[in-house]
């Protein structure tokens, strides 16, 4: 049984300009110990899907559908129910390590709080465990860091503190939302290594949300590609990269500049702009930008169809391997 099973999830935000459909009919499952990569551009719904799973939607947001964590539905669950899961069995690493740590609390106290709250640990005990966790994520001079404030640490160290905090209660699922986007490449490599290590040694399931296909290629076992609040393609990491079957996935791969690519000149692009979520195009949301679009695509929405071992796509066109 998957540890996290999202079924037909919709997330809507009520705004002054009308309703925004951020997530539309998304179904996803995360198996124990696997790393699921979620790829998409801004506004594709990749973050909001999992914010809903963590019960962290903004006040004007509403989720419906099912989010089954270890069999129990979290949609519409009480705050108390969320609190037993959140930060304990399922935790989250955010993009910006500065704004997600409390600025006026020492690192040690922020870490200890998690254990005191969820595990009823004593303060002394919590400090010992926090220290061990900081060492595990390779923070140098860990003991001294416990008594520092977040602003005294570099971005890379802050992100390690976030990871340590997420790991304290040995969660079954870690949701990493763009964990390395704010970091320099050399520091990004260090953080990705730690996440890899966590996944391998602790067998924690990791949901890796990112716009960087390179990051997904290195870590994920399976990949889901999202566009305009829907999943357009799912598959194992190898086949998504070597044999993309949705025009959007194909386009994304083609327009990503690669370090190992010596070509110059005009780059492949995806024409047009991502759609406005208040006024989604009819039919397939991608059709105004798709070079394969036919009349049917404007009238009818393709369903996410399974067509092979663990692979599915939402497209009428039968794209064959290149």
């Amino acid at each position: 049984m998957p540890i996290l099973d999202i079924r037909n999830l919709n997330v809507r935000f009520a705004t002054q300009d009308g309703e925004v459909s951020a997530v539309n009919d998304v179904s996803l499952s995360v198996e124990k110990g696997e790393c699921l990569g979620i790829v998409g551009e801004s506004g594709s719904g990749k973050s909001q899907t999992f914010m809903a799973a963590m019960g962290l939607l903004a006040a004007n947001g509403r989720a419906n559908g099912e989010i089954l964590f270890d069999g129990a539905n979290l949609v519409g669950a009480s705050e108390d129910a969320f609190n037993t899961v959140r930060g304990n069995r399922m935790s989250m690493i955010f993009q910006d390590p500065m704004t997600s740590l409390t600025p006026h609390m020492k690192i040690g106290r922020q870490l200890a709080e998690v254990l005191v709250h969820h595990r009823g640990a004593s303060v002394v005990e919590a400090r010992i465990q926090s220290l061990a966790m900081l060492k595990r994520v390779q923070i140098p001079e860990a003991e001294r860091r416990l008594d520092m404030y977040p602003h005294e640490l570099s971005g890379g160290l802050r992100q390690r503190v976030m990871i340590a905090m997420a790991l304290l209660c040995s969660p079954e699922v870690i949701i990493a939302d763009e964990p390395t986007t704010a970091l320099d490449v050399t520091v990004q490599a260090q953080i990705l290594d730690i996440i890899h290590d966590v996944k391998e040694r602790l067998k924690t399931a990791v949901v890796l949300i990112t716009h960087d296909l390179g990051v997904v290629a290195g870590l994920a076992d399976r990949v889901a590609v999202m566009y305009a609040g829907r999943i357009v393609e799912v598959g194992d990491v190898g086949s998504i990269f070597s044999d993309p079957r949705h025009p959007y996935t194909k386009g994304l791969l083609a327009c990503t500049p690669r370090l190992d690519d010596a070509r110059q000149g005009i780059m492949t692009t995806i024409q047009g702009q991502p759609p406005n979520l208040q006024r989604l195009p009819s039919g397939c949301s991608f059709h105004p930008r798709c070079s394969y679009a036919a009349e049917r695509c404007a009238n009818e929405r393709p369903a996410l169809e399974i067509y092979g071992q663990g692979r599915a796509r939402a497209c009428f066109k039968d794209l064959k391997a290149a």
Partner: protein
Amino acid sequence: MMTQPFLQIRDLKVHFPVRTGGLFFGDYTALKAVDGISFDLKAGETLGVVGESGCGKSTLGRAVLQLVPATSGAVSWLGCDLTQQDKNEIKKCRQELQIVFQDPLASLDPRMTAGDIIAEPLRNYFPAMSNSERTAKVQDMMAKVGLLPGMVNRYPHEFSGGQCQRIGIARAMILKPKLIVCDEPVSALDVSIRAQVINLLMDLQKDFNLSLIFISHDLAVVRHISHRVLVLYLGKVMELAERESLYRAPRHPYTQALMAAVPIPDPDKERAKKRVILTGDPPSPLNPPSGCVFRTRCGQANERCVQEIPLLETASVGHEVSCHHWRNTLENRI
């Protein structure tokens, strides 16, 4: 392509005074954001500038345009040293030297329409120009950067990030400059939009024989757009080389580490790759290491690196590197 250097930077230094210790009467220490950088730029050429946050790449770009005062050194634009000119002279030169910023929305005045934003440089430099001529030029430039003429009266918040960046580029291009400093112009954009903006910059470069200084932390984008690449670390040049020479055979251990750290969107290659890499973070620019500034994170550092500052040496034609060990670095490549 002309061979006469358009822009010559010689031993450029930009130091900022930073108070260290003491609330009111503390001592000042120099933060060496840019510390002795020299390079030439030809007409129609793109120089990529790469490095991690805090390496001085943005300060370098701003110092070229004299948006921050140089502490010492020379910035010669067509033979005229901008650091020695008064404000009026610099203003004249700025017609030919423009900049595009990273954050597309923050760099546009929210209370001005797209048309006004793009027209502003014309108002500054040609106050006598008639309204109809100005409008025609603005419309023409909007078409060139891929904006519809009907968008002229819209405000910045009505545009997407990619479109805002096009407005920023149109504003920089309206005076037909010879050089544009692009400070992380695509970092804030989505992947599918990023390629569109890079194509636009390359098109404009071809049409107007523009020189570009392309500042970015993204080594893959830089490889695509640059003719030559400058690698910075703590305000100093680590390596300066022709694009292919640098990417095929990076000589400096820092360049090698940077390249090794960039994830490649190919699971087989990415997983086969030997990771890591550099440990730790770059040291504080307020208190840089003695000798070679990179030595504290370098696997090949020895006693000499502690004592002696490496000079920029020519490793091959058009490939300069500042490392005591450059002759051996290719064998030890990570």
